[in-house]
């Protein structure tokens, strides 16, 4: 009773509190600002740094060409240091203190989930660009990276065709890995193949002796590797050392953390990655992009798939604002939901209004014994899964993440 009474009093007091506070100095509301919260240190520095750089590059290019609606864009970009608590603090700071008009944030799905409640509370326009497990159907979130279904949909059928129909899955033991494992099963089923073994490895595991044993005794036609992070990258050297020769399909390796450049050949021989982009993509548009990127950042850091996603998504945002004629976030979201096409380094692609995802130019990247990359089987793949589950943000606002096991028997 005491608690109830004091809560009553407190909420009465709360009513007097102004959102900005008596002393608060808000950001200049006239100047459009975007936040780039990408990891430049600690766990995800390797993949986060190019994301930050490519976003910055895009904003600078736009500003040089006269900005958006004639206004220069300010950037708020502290380093969240791969720490989700920091992400939460910085997201709040970006929303309250910087009053940002759009937010790019986070490499891992965990980061996205950590800040999504804050983003939703404030209806903050948020671009999440990592290739991810898929399924986010959320009014203020635009997950523009390829989904697991898009990436695996590129590589799994290709390998079934090339090598045969017995698949062994090894994936990181967390959300992304588990859902990717589900997708491999679904796609295998759709193509008449079979998953003969499946294994989920803790994120901090770096000894794959027993895993390799089990793969060898299962003797699959090819294996799918959805391993992620530093510790897991030890797998490839151990695979080489143990003489495991089954071809490897992946949605996680090479395009993001450029294992083919960091690990000595031939550890990644016959690794096939389903990707929408890699720096090595031999098109004129991409080569020009890569050159601009390296000129701007003046070192030989790898330009990864996610960085490209960040880059084109800034242009998606620009088109949205221009179509809306205002930086007002609700208006921009509505404008984006009318559909946007963009000339991305990976090719011409379009935003899918209903799901806030992109269709992507998917291809299979193959590493040979010298870790040279070649591309094959290019085709456009739509974000089909969310359509199947009935996500249509143009007609109904949602803040959900759908998962395949509820919709496919095989999962």
């Amino acid at each position: 009773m005491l608690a109830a009474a004091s809560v009553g009093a407190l909420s009465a007091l709360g009513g007097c509190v102004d959102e900005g506070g008596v002393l608060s100095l808000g950001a200049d509301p006239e100047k459009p600002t975007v936040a780039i919260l990408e990891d430049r240190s600690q766990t995800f520095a390797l993949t986060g740094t190019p994301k930050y750089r490519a976003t910055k590059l895009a904003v600078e290019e736009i500003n040089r060409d006269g900005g958006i609606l004639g206004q220069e864009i300010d950037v708020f970009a502290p380093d969240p240091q791969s720490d989700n608590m920091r992400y939460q603090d910085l997201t709040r700071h970006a929303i309250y203190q910087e009053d940002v008009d759009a937010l790019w944030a986070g490499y891992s799905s965990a980061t996205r989930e950590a800040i999504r409640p804050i983003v939703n509370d404030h209806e903050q326009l948020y671009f999440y660009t990592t290739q991810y497990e898929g399924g986010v159907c959320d009014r203020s979130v635009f997950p523009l990276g390829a989904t697991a279904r898009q990436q695996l949909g590129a590589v799994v059928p290709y390998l079934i065709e090339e090598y045969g129909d017995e698949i062994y899955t090894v994936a990181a033991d967390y959300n992304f890995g588990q859902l990717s494992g589900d997708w491999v099963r679904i796609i295998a089923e759709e193509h008449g193949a079979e998953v003969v073994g499946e294994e989920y490895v803790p994120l901090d595991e770096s000894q794959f002796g027993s895993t390799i044993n089990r793969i060898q005794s299962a003797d699959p036609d090819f294996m799918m590797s959805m391993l992620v992070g530093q510790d897991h990258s030890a797998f490839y050297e151990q695979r080489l050392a143990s003489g495991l020769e089954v071809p490897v399909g992946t949605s996680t390796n090479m395009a993001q953390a450029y294992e083919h450049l960091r690990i000595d050949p031939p550890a990644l021989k016959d690794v096939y990655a389903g990707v929408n982009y890699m720096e090595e993509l031999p098109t004129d548009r991409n080569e020009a992009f890569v050159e601009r990127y390296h000129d701007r950042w003046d070192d030989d850091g790898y330009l990864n798939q996610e960085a490209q996603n960040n880059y084109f998504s800034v242009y998606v945002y620009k088109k949205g604002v221009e179509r809306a004629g205002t930086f007002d976030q609700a208006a921009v979201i509505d404008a984006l939901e009318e559909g946007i096409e963009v000339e991305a380094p990976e090719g011409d692609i379009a935003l899918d209004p209903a799901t806030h995802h992109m269709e992507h130019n998917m291809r299979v990247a193959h590493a040979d014994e010298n870790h040279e990359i070649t591309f094959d089987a290019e085709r456009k793949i739509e974000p089909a899964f969310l359509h199947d589950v009935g996500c249509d943000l143009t007609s109904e606002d949602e803040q959900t993440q759908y998962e395949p096991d509820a919709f496919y028997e095989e999962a």
Partner: protein
Amino acid sequence: MSLGSDSSGGLLAAVREPFEGPNTMGNTPAFWLGLTAAVTLLAAMPVLFGYYAAEIGAVFLAYALLGVSLCFIWGYCGILSFGQVAFFGVAGYAFGIVAINVPTLTGLTLGLLAAVAVSTAFAAALGYFMFYGGVRDVYVTILTLVVALVLYTFLGQTAGGEWAIGDARLGGFNGMSGVPDLGVGIGSVGLEIGIVGHYYVTLGALVVTYLGLRALVNSQFGYAMVATREDERRTEMFGYDTTFIKFVVFTIGGAIAGLSGVLFTAQNNYIDPSVFGITAAALPVVWASVGGRTSLIGTIGAALAIQFVDYQLALSGSEWALVLIGSLLVFVILVMPEGVAPRLHEYVVEYRASPDPTPAETPAPGEVHGGDD
């Protein structure tokens, strides 16, 4: 916050009396005046700086409450737990599970109660297991840390759809998202607690817990705790059931940590396994060590100050926060093992004692200074 009137003149010494004694510092009107001023200032933060201060500040206050839970068991009963975050996190998850499934006022109220009950029961079970099994000293410390790390590993792999309780997905490494805000009430009568309300609820919980623990540690049970900390075997030979005392203290500590976990989770609408991780587990130890493990107010101050500095460092993008926090810990233990607040208190007492002591400072009957170590 009715304290304002009590502390002003020392007229209501009788009201202060249960909160004072040699087991806590600050048994003077000046202290209570200072405390009131500090609480008033904290209460004014959202008014001065808006929702932003309320959102950020509520997290700091929840941390302070977590720090208090460790200070209480370590500083007063000598049980060093490296796993207070286990109770914090378990309660956070428990609240999330109930609240996501029943996001009504009744459900939220139940969620709060159930979560604190779960963390309390968990602490009781672990405490029973350890203390009645003769586990002591470093073994308790290691065991509690291992429990936190086991939870970290366990919840990290609950990504699959089978790890759902009703509508609540444990969510593995990505954490549990969509946890509703706090609410209190039954049926349609009650209050949903928004951003600012949450700040005041957290502040209120901290103040009430602080005062409650002050009263507890200065009670007969508090003496028994302190005696157990000082010399367990001796205390047993004075007829105290020290095993039971440790068990009770550990359980209360778990309950407080659990409450802070609920407040933290409801504030962020989110919880993930990193709350059980080794860095998170270190923080309460840092706050209590730096602030003073035998000083509740010192621990609260240290938690607020350290987290504020950490936040500022994060904004500036500096990577040095953890280095600073770790070094601070080493430095404090080496230079002033008792912590900052007890050391300051000593200076204050000496300062008052050395020149001509003013009559106002003569200790009230029943007050014994210098008992704090």
